[in-house]
């Protein structure tokens, strides 16, 4: 078993861990978005959806544990990688290499990730946590999400969501294709395919999420 | 001391085989009892160090470079010769041997050249086994091309980076031995002296270029593979740090210096553009396959080349050499370019350049054809000069490129100091008075991989080596001398920089000991060089301290040796009253201005013995005997 340990201690192993968790999290985002889009169907549709999830508690709990582990692995590994990388260049340049050599999104993974993380804590605390305490059969989840103090109809909250999701888009703009490079499929043969699929993950999904606060916070 | 070249008995093709059988061997278990020092990790030294470590010797390798992946060898573009005859065009070991002796204008030792041709094929096998990515054909087999001075395709190449790829191959086998601990590598260490005990080379003194520390290293034998000395001309195609110090210090310890005046001038280099110029860049000779060389007929004509009509142009190579035209050998092309410029036909701001024009071939075959074939060279030219050779003709001028001369060695590659062996460009080698393209890489690797590992065994097995280490008196004395010498240099604190004086030396050398030499000029050089040396020792300014990283001190210490070598070169050129290969004495030419060799009086290797700082060196002659190759006059008309 030591080889597993050695593998994940190596620089490439750490990156493989980040990439695997990152891709799985992206897949989770896709399913999460499908659920959220039900908000557009109105209160009844959304409430039914959440109720049906509540009815398969064990499955959801299991998924939540896995998800938490994924996040933890991704974040811990991310922090570790970032700190090690800072240490590898302890003196920085007077004029740092800038946009001629790297794209903003690839330079700012730690920042975009961290802000997404702050958002995540807030997000869990407001929605996920409140949902846990709503046991009655006629609980109105829709109302919490849209109309409550922390709901989308509050432009400040909606704005914060939009900002976080833009950063998530930035994170995935680099992260999604980067993960494949990390897995070793960076040949020109696959590059265009990966980049096309990546658009769905970094652009379409975050836009999908963003459409909700935009609609409920500003348009409606 | 008479020179004993130790050429083995037998027919030329049997000599090496007989010799390998006849020499003494060190048994495998005993090899680890021997320490060998290798100075220089270019192709020759790196190959020797790795191979001897594989055999079991303890090797200490030194280089002033930061890593054995760097050395001047890396710059070679063209390729490496071997007598594989893969293209089936009639090549053979004998033909490679023949071409090399002839190309060297009959001033090389037949037996050595034959051996070189004989092992050339193994070199290619070895490099391929190491993973050197030589160019291949679609069928997956190795590709060859032809190169100057040969009528067969025998040159193996790796794009324009043959030297780089070969050196990386050498480096890979060297790091493998460094990993096992059989080779200890000392980066950024400058060898400053050879130490003898009982008259035998037993070690070296080095200066650690980072800390300035002077250290002794002892061994049972010493190998120098420290490259050529073209930088005595200041401007050359050599790497900036290439120098003669190791060879020169060995010379002062008793190693004879052979044919120092034999320098090769390459005709197609980018001309000097300012007095700040530090380095000349070679453009591959292949350009002469399609480019036409010309100058304006009118002296001092500085019109735009486009405005000079056909009948106002002098395509002088085509005019003088109707059958070879632009493809005459390096020495001829170079000399004629200089002659044109001397007569006032030179072009460009410095008037020291001739045109190399691709207009015709572009009209004939189209621009795409040209860019397919020469694109990277054109880009390189543009990068350096800022001019676009697709639109205006290139300007080229000859530049110092290679030194055929070097320390004298016998058949075993041992110098006149027992135990001191010389490999690669540093020895006087196999190229006579002129080296053919793609033969230097071959020689370096032949010496390092396939010759010295055998012949050094013979020396070691003969025994008689005292058990000593680097605390021996001889080392202490040598260390002290080095230290005093460096302190003396630092203390001058004059007004001229090292570069100032080096540039002046370069001017003298180029003017009087360059492409075309004559008695008067050589005597002038013999006058001027000692004066300049005097000036160096009284007026040079070296900043910084002794015990620190100090590139100016490195340069100064090298220049001090160049200032002595330059004089020996002039003396050798003066002594050689004939024209041969790269050595052209204006007094000795035919009525058609071609080189006139004098085989009756000068078919010898001139090996000079150092006789003390203020004494004239003594000339020793090794007569050259040509059993195989008949002496003929080259003609390119």
């Amino acid at each position, binding site marked *: 078993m030591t080889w597993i340990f050695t593998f994940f201690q190596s620089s490439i192993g750490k990156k493989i861990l980040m990439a695997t968790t990152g891709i799985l999290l992206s897949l989770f985002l896709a399913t999460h978005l499908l659920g959220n889009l039900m908000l557009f169907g109105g209160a009844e549709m959304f409430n039914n959806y959440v109720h049906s999830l509540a009815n398969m508690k064990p499955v959801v709990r299991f998924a939540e544990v896995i998800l938490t582990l994924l996040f933890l692995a991704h974040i811990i590994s991310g922090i570790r990688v970032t700190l090690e*990388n800072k240490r590898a260049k302890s003196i920085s340049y007077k004029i740092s290499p800038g946009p001629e050599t790297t794209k903003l999104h690839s330079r700012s993974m730690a920042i975009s990730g961290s802000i997404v993380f702050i958002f995540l804590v807030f997000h869990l605390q407001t929605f996920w946590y409140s949902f846990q305490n709503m046991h009655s059969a006629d609980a109105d989840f829709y109302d919490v999400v849209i109309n409550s103090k922390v709901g989308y109809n509050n432009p400040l909250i909606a704005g914060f969501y939009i900002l976080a999701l833009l950063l998530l888009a930035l994170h995935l703009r680099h992260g999604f294709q980067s993960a494949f490079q990390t*897995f*070793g499929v960076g040949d020109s043969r696959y590059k265009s395919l990966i980049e096309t699929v990546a658009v769905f993950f970094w652009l379409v999904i975050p836009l999908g999420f963003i459409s909700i606060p935009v609609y409920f916070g500003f348009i409606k | 001391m008479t020179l004993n070249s130790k050429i083995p008995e037998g027919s030329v093709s049997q000599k090496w085989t007989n010799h390998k059988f006849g020499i003494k061997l060190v048994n495998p278990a005993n090899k680890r009892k021997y320490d060998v020092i290798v100075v220089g990790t270019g192709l020759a030294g790196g190959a020797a160090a790795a191979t001897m470590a594989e055999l079991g010797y303890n090797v200490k390798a030194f280089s002033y470079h930061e890593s054995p992946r760097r050395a001047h060898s890396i710059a070679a573009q063209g390729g490496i010769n071997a007598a594989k005859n893969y293209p089936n065009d009639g090549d053979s070991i004998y033909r490679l041997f023949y071409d090399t002796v002839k190309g060297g204008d009959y001033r090389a030792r037949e037996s050595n050249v034959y051996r070189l041709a004989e092992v050339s094929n193994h070199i290619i096998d070895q490099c391929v086994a190491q993973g050197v990515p030589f160019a291949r054909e679609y069928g997956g087999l190795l590709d060859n091309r032809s190169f100057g001075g040969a009528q067969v395709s025998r040159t193996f190449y790796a794009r324009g980076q043959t030297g780089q790829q070969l050196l990386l191959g050498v480096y890979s086998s060297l790091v493998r031995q460094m990993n096992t601990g059989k080779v200890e590598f000392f980066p950024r260490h400058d060898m400053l002296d050879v130490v003898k005990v009982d008259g035998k080379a037993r070690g070296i003194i080095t200066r650690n270029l980072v800390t300035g520390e002077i250290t002794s290293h002892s061994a049972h034998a010493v190998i120098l593979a420290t490259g050529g000395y073209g930088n005595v001309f200041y401007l050359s195609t050599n790497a900036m740090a290439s120098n003669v110090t190791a060879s020169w210090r060995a010379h002062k310890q008793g190693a004879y210096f052979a044919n120092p005046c034999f320098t090769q001038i390459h005709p197609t280099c980018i001309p000097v553009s300012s007095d700040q110029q530090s380095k000349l860049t070679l453009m591959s000779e292949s350009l002469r396959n399609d480019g036409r060389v010309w100058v304006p007929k009118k002296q001092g004509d500085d019109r735009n080349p486009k405005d000079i009509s056909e009948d106002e142009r002098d395509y002088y190579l085509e005019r003088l050499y109707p059958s070879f035209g632009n493809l005459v050998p390096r020495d001829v092309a170079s000399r004629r370019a200089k002659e044109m410029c001397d007569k006032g036909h030179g072009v460009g701001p410095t008037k020291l350049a001739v045109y190399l024009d691709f207009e015709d071939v572009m009209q004939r075959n189209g621009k795409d054809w040209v860019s397919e074939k020469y694109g990277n060279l054109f880009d390189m030219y543009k*990068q350096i000069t800022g001019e676009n050779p697709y639109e205006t003709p290139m300007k080229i001028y000859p530049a110092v490129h290679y030194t055929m001369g070097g320390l004298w060695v016998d058949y075993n590659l041992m110098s006149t100091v027992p135990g001191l062996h010389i490999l690669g460009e540093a020895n006087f080698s196999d190229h006579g008075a002129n080296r053919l393209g793609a033969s230097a890489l071959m020689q370096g690797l032949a010496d390092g991989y396939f010759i010295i590992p055998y012949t050094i065994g013979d020396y070691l097995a003969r025994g008689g080596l005292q058990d000593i280490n680097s605390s021996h008196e001889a080392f202490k004395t040598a260390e002290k001398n080095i230290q005093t010498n460096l302190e003396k240099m630092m203390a001058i604190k004059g007004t001229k920089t090292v570069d100032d004086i080096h540039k002046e030396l370069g001017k003298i050398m180029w003017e009087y000991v360059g492409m075309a030499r004559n008695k008067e000029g050589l005597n002038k050089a013999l006058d001027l060089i000692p004066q300049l040396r005097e000036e160096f020792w009284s007026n040079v300014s070296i900043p910084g301290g002794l015990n620190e990283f100090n590139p100016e001190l490195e340069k100064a210490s090298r220049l001090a040796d160049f200032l002595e070598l330059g004089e020996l070169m002039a003396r050798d050129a003066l002594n050689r009253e004939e024209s041969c290969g790269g050595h052209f004495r204006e007094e000795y030419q035919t009525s058609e201005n071609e080189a006139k060799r004098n085989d009756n009086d000068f078919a010898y290797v001139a090996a000079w013995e150092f006789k003390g700082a203020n004494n004239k060196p003594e000339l020793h002659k090794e007569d050259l005997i040509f059993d195989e190759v008949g002496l003929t006059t080259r003609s390119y008309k």
Partner: protein
Amino acid sequence: MKITVQAWRQSSPTSAGEFVSYPVDNVSEDMSFFEMMDKLNNNLIRQGKDPISFDHDCREGICGTCGIMINGRAHGPLKGVTSCQLHMRSFKDGETLVVEPWRANSFPVIRDLVVDRSSFDRVMESGGYVSVNTGGVPDANATPILKNDVDLAFDAAACIGCGACVATCKNSSAMLFVGAKVTQYALLPQGQVERKNRVSNMVAQMDIEGFGNCTNTSACEVECPKEISVENIARLNREFLKASF
């Protein structure tokens, strides 16, 4: 032209450093960047000051010895060239050039702009070779190799070990350098026997040397004077995965 050079000055590996500005007059456009530096250094020596140390040798872009950060660009602003191949015509009259040494903890500064890149050699020692002794190898044409494979191997082998990839990388990662070497051998039949050990050992040594973790920013590819592609990094990852499982 008139140029101001703002250079990092550090007299020894352990001493503190600082930036110092020097004016250089009468710079011609045809001078190379290093010839401008030579001129500046000769001026400094004449004024009794210490010249600026920098590493260089071939001055034609092949030996990999030179490497300077110029205004935040490794080897200066041009694509596909080394510091020694830059000419002053690439800069504007009156421009200030901030010159810094490669910055990476695995490349400690020796003096001024000179750094110690021996970490690269140690990575190579750990596996950057085919274990063949001199002699006793098959004929060079015994094994045909697909031209395409050799060409790709060559693209990778073109690395000159200059360290610009590490220098420009915000993580000081050496993946492009290591990836290029691993690729060269992975594509050639000669490299097959030791393929797995080679990649494991080289990556392990790369980590020991303290190079950072690659985050695929691709800055290395932009600054590499030999234009080595990040596809070599992908291949390194793949080779490492294959060797690990």
